[in-house]
């Protein structure tokens, strides 16, 4: 009797905790399903290549927003990747001192920066300085979010490189900097790449930092010092209007963005797993 009761509790708790997992997965499935159902009908070649059309007018697309997202994310990468990767190298290979631990701590705390705060930073630091919303300001705001992620993932992947490999290289008389550049970095290549791609996936979907940095634009990009359209901001703009045909475009834009991000997320893990058999 007593034994049965304990077993019953065990089963019940297994059931309830499993139910938590199922319930948490429902919103994910619902989002993927709804975005696909609502988005698929509005997607065609025009949608991917044309400029937005005014309300009520058929056709038009998000071509400029797709172009703009690539440009702004590209700028963020130009700033964020060198800083993030090299800082990660420092933290992993030379960072075992007070300064290194402090940098590591600061990077950790920066990972929690609210995205809207990065937007304000982009505004006061770049927009006010140049006097106009710009692609560059958007890229800078996104890089604030990207740098700590890339730094931490690079540091972690480098730490996974076995000490014996480094020692073998040093024993051959190869200086530490060459060992780090040619042997440690290339061993950790796939881990660093994974971190980089996941950070790109993360910032590609960010809206808040772009609202008042890259702002928005109904035309093709015409210069990095000009406001530029991006997918997340365009989706937001369409979503909060009362027009059903713009809602349809928001869904279609969401589908494009979600496909892009899912490819990065699932693809990256698949590739690295197959290559290294982890």
């Amino acid at each position: 009797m007593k034994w049965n009761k304990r077993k019953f509790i065990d089963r019940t708790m297994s059931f309830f905790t499993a139910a938590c997992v199922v319930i948490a997965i429902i919103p994910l499935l619902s989002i993927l399903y709804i975005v696909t159902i609502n988005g698929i009908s509005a997607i065609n070649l025009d949608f991917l290549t044309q400029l937005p059309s005014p309300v009520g007018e058929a056709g038009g697309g998000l071509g400029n927003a797709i172009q703009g997202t690539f440009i702004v994310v590209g700028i963020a990468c130009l700033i964020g990747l060198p800083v993030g990767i090299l800082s990660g190298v420092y933290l992993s290979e030379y960072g075992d001192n007070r300064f290194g631990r402090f940098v590591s701590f600061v990077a950790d705390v920066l990972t929690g920066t609210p995205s809207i705060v990065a937007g304000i930073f982009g505004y006061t630091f770049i927009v006010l300085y140049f006097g106009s919303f710009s692609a560059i300001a958007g890229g800078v705001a996104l890089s604030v979010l990207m740098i700590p992620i890339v730094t931490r993932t690079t540091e972690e992947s480098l730490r996974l490189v076995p000490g014996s490999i480094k020692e073998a290289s040093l024993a051959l008389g190869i200086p530490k900097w060459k060992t780090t550049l040619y042997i440690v970095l290339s061993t950790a290549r796939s881990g660093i790449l994974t971190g980089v791609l996941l950070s790109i996936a993360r910032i590609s979907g960010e809206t808040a930092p772009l609202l008042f940095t890259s702002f928005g634009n109904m035309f093709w990009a015409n210069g990095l010092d000009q406001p530029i359209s991006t997918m997340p901001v365009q989706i937001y703009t369409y979503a909060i209007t009362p027009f059903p045909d713009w809602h349809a475009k928001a869904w279609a834009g969401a589908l494009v963005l979600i496909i892009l991000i899912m490819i990065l997320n699932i693809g990256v893990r698949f590739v690295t797993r197959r290559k290294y058999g982890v």
Partner: protein
Amino acid sequence: MNKLKLPFFDRSKLSGDFIFEAVVGSFAFGIIILAFLLFNELFIGSELSRNTFGLSFLTTSTWDPVNEIFGALPFIFGTIVSSFLALLIAVPFSLGIAIYLSELAPEKLRAPLSFIIELLAAIPSVIIGLWGIFILAPFIRDQLAPPLSTYLGFLPLFQGPMYGLSMLTGGVILAIMIIPITSSISREAILTVPAHQREGAIALGATGWETTQIAVLPYARSGIFGAVILGFGRAVGETMAVTMVIGNSPLISASLFSPSYTMASVIANEFVEATSKLYISSLVEIGFLLLMVSVIINIAARILVWKLLRVEGGGRA
């Protein structure tokens, strides 16, 4: 021989290493500069507002851009209530998920299920908001709110009309968004519990749940607490999805059915339209408060999680 070769060899090695270390070190220093700039820009940017309103900025609730009187209390209220509501919903679920995926689930299911849950964190906030406007808000308005007001309507929490965009919707959407981080960090904390803890309980005849209850959870407590705090930090800083479903009215109401407004939302909505210097400065001050809260939360959480990982040395290979 030796004397001739060694210094030359050493010097070249030293200079190459020295230059490389200096280069990567200066990039690492860049991170500290970035943190300083972030703090500095928001501190300077909010100076006008801080000097004009002082502490009353935090305690008054008039938000009047026309007469340039700004008090952030409704937004602080909205952020705190929506974030706590999110925690209230998300923490039990996250704990359940973490326990199931680290202790009770069949081995084969653990990795794929964790991956799927973490995938939720990869969905952009704006898309969750879009889903929130058209799916979640109507669902809460039509399915969840009527029974709540029928059975619990005597509580001030569930009174008044419900139009879908409300504090309740904001809290639910935040809960959905913080479940991935809270559950995955709790799971990590549970995974660092050494195997001998579990083995001891199992050897005494404990069932799977009893093992979790007696041997695992007390051990992982501080890590789980850190996970909850990090989830709170996420909820406080989350912008787009909440902005799209919380209704954006600066009200301080006891009812969860009433629309509300958060600190992040007011920045997102009004920054571009803010024309006067004082208006912008007030919004920057709200951003500065958000930054400070997130820094404090992250430091606290890192200390809790880090201490646990350090002391136990990590249970995972």
